[in-house]
């Protein structure tokens, strides 16, 4: 970029390029976006890897996430401290995993984590109910919600433990026609 001020060293950029699906231009743009969220917090100079985190409340104001019913979950999933605060590493990680080039397997893993609200490594009925209520803005009656959740578990649960393990989830999602086209964020 034309900036006189260097944001990243050459090595950092190389490293980020190897660790994400982004080009160096995109990495710099992501940094700009990240900095935009909290200009007073995030320095322009990232060459010495400052340990700075932007809180979730700021992250979810991004237009890419603003309308997403699962925005809090997404941010929490990718935040290293699990509180929703994102360092730049987490931030770039998030958009790398959600970008178009990232493979189905990776997306499946993160989708599972996102939908696993209580982080017990299973998508259980409560997770499903939460998902459903977020998706429909709570416009379904409780009976309908229970029915849908039961049906979903019945469909996808392979080992019969009444909750979806990662294997169940993977099996189900691998056949979904819309998953890849829908589960991505363009930045």
């Amino acid at each position, binding site marked *: 970029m034309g900036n006189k001020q260097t944001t990243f060293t050459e090595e950092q950029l190389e490293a980020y390029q190897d660790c994400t699906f982004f080009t160096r231009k995109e990495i710099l743009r992501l940094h700009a976006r990240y900095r935009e969220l909290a200009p007073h917090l995030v320095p322009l100079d990232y060459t010495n890897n400052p340990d700075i985190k932007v809180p979730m409340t700021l992250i979810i104001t991004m237009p890419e996430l603003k309308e997403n019913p699962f925005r809090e979950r997404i941010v929490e999933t990718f935040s290293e401290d699990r509180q929703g605060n994102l360092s730049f590493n987490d931030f770039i990680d998030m958009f790398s995993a*959600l970008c178009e080039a990232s493979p189905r397997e990776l997306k499946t*893993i993160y989708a599972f984590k996102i939908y696993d609200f209580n982080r017990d*490594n299973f998508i259980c009925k409560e997770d499903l109910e939460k998902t459903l209520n977020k998706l429909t803005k709570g*416009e379904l009656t409780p009976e309908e919600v229970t*029915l849908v959740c039961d049906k979903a578990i019945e*469909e996808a649960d392979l080992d019969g433990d009444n909750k*979806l393990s990662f294997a169940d989830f993977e099996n189900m999602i*691998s056949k979904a026609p*819309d998953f*890849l086209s829908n589960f991505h964020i363009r930045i």
Partner: protein
Amino acid sequence: MEVDATLDSGSEGKPYGTIFCLYEARRRSKNRRAKAQRKKKQVSDDEDDEEDEDEAPRKRGRRKRTKPQDSDQDDEEDKRSVRQKGAKASRRKAANEERDEESEEDQGKRKKGGRAASKQEKEDQNKEKKGNVKGKDETNKGSEKDKKKKNGKQSSSPVSSSEDESDEESMSEGEIAALKEQVEEKKKLIATLRNKPWRMKRRLVLLKEAQEFVEKFEGALGKGRGKKLYAFKVMMTKVLMGLPYGSIPRKTVPRSEQDTAMDFSVLFDFGVRILGVPCLLPYGSWDRLQPPGYCKYSILFYGYYNNERTIGVLKFRLPLSYLLTGVGIFGYSLMVVIRTMARNANEGGDGGDEGEFTFSWKMFTSWDYLIGNPETADNKYASITTSFKESIVDEKENQKNENIHLRRFLRILANIMILCCLGGSGYLIYFVVKRSQDFAKMDPASLTWFQKNEVEFVMSLLGLVCPPLFETIAELEDYHPRIALKWQLGRIFALFLGNLYTFLFALFDEVNAKLETEQELKNATEWAIHEYNANYSSYYNTTDVPPLVVNPADAVRGPCWETAVGIEFVKLIVSDMQVTFLTILIGDFGRAITVRFLNYCWCWDLEAGIPSYAEFDISGNVLGLIFNQGMIWMGAFYAPGLVGLNVLRLLTSMYFQCWAVMACNVPHERVFKASRSNNFYMGLLLLVLFLSLLPVVYTIMTLPPSFDCGPFSGQDRMYDVVMETITQDLPAFMGTIFTYATNPGLIMPAVLLMVLAIYYLNTVSKGYQQANLDLKKKMKMARDEEKNRRNNKDSTNQVMKDLEDLLPNKSLIPPPTEEEPPHDIVIEKGSKSTKMKPGSAGKGVNLQKEVSLAAPNPRRPVAHPPRARGGPPGHLRGPLPGPGRGRGRGAPPRT
């Protein structure tokens, strides 16, 4: 977070594990080697130690030196024995050499041993990895253990740190191989790092480690320590691996864009490419400018291009390239369409598994993460809610049963009506085309505008009226919306196709008529020239007649049927465009304005009520695009400029429709995803491509080209150009090869082979399908079993139940009687278990287990007192009392 933990630990374990293992592997084999050397050689320790360090650099060189001498080993030894009597120094040297040779042999042995060792190491490593995956705690333990091991090794073996460095130099082949593998692994890790679900921090750390490792040991492997060479090698491996890590995934077109732009881009691409050769070289030789229409003689149409064999210094062969482009377009399009279809088929079950995961898919994949607009988000929420409600209703309806006869009748009725519509529209077009041919023979001045453009008008009108009509009729059928949509699309497709083909057949009549006129004209002009020559020679009394000079504009012209066909297609496209634009302006924009402004002074709510706003008809528009493409495919050969025209049309209509959608349409009530039936549309496109290929190829192969216009004028058939090129421009042997290749004797077996290959592949794919089904069944069984075990109840599998009921003993058991008192059962159970034991002494344990497993099963009809039913007299199990029989399983082993 178990998943997280396992993955994390796995990831942590791996690199450390590999690095460590590498060190350890080297150390171990080193030790082994050192010990072996010591034992074998029995040379003084200090000497050995001395040499061990400086031997390494020398060794390589010496090995090289000794290698060529290997064959002369014996001679050398003889010499050595002679020399032994000489100076001590020389003896010393010889000994040294001997040792070297020995060590070489050792190395050969060690090579194998080392490999085995490395394998072992790997296994160890794998075990370690597995262990690591189990959990962080174990990883820590494992690493601790590893450290201990390491320490132990270090303390037990006197390996100095200086040796460690020299190690790199003096590694055995096995070690090198192992190291290479490690390096490869590291490289792979670097390449796939971005696919790992790890935290960025860890990724960065690992990347650094891996890179350092690779950098360090790439050099150590003795294949050029220069960084440049390393970089080159990495690059090469990237290229060779095919799955590169630097550039490709990030720089290719994103998948979603491919998907979303599919319908458009396909159309677009062809458009641009068709423009290729002919239009870029407007080598105009004839001045065909004439008042009735400049366009008719412009580069837009076939007639513009002439039949000069080569053009310019580069000898550009226009006729040949015209033909090859025309045919190449079809080949390329076919390839692209089929490839896209194949890719779509690979990606996710296309409709195959539909219905299996309705609810879960809706739950997990219905939200589009790209949505960033509040209004769109609201729409999406609403549509998701409705789709859930629909699914619920569907689910409930599945159990219901209704009057199937009425429905059948209605469906048949609807289909009859639609067939009538299709037939009617076909006839109408045929009629109109015929009439237009009559009109064409009349004086153009006396015709009205409508009469001139009747065909296009009627076709567009039919395209406008019929689809809504079909939709209305389809209401009768009451299909599920998704199925209804497919029917609707299929019908519209049939309509368009029927119309297009009627149009084509009518056009062929016209072409034949034109060919006849052309023949007449040709004869007439030939006769005229003959007359002219005769007159000239008789008048001037000379035989060398100067050629007739005629202004090209005055020359007699044939009808040039190719241009006529091209013009028809251009007219069709233009009128289609006009109709599209007008429909949008009136149907969408006008309607939106009326609804919006009349709503202030109307007695009911127009926006929510009857007229409301128009919906954007995705499927109809996509079909329109497909047909447009079909027409382009058909027409491009006769009107190369059509392609450019179409590009313009598509561009304008895209922006126009985009505006219309944003401004005056409301989203479809049922959100219809084009991506779901992607292959459906691609299939339609393929069909259209094939159907538009037919007439073009037919004309190329059978109809004689016009005599006086176009690149093929003067030839019998268009493809003669190819023959001409082969005979004239290519070397002779190519011609012979070509004649052999086109020999039917060769083509027939080739076709046969292809058919057989298709048959074989088809069989194989069927086999795979079967295997898939079997696996699915197995999975389901396993699932049922799991559930069964969990509930500890009866088998839920209906088949198993039925089979159990069919067991021989069971059928003899009378149904359980209700009036039995409950305590009887208890007694019976107790008595039975005691009785079973002695009877089944051989397999006692097993059987008992089974029995005890089966005992709580409520379905088994065991609730009888022992004496309630005596065994039938003919039964084999005489000595056994009744209750044993009830088990069904206890009986067989005893007999």
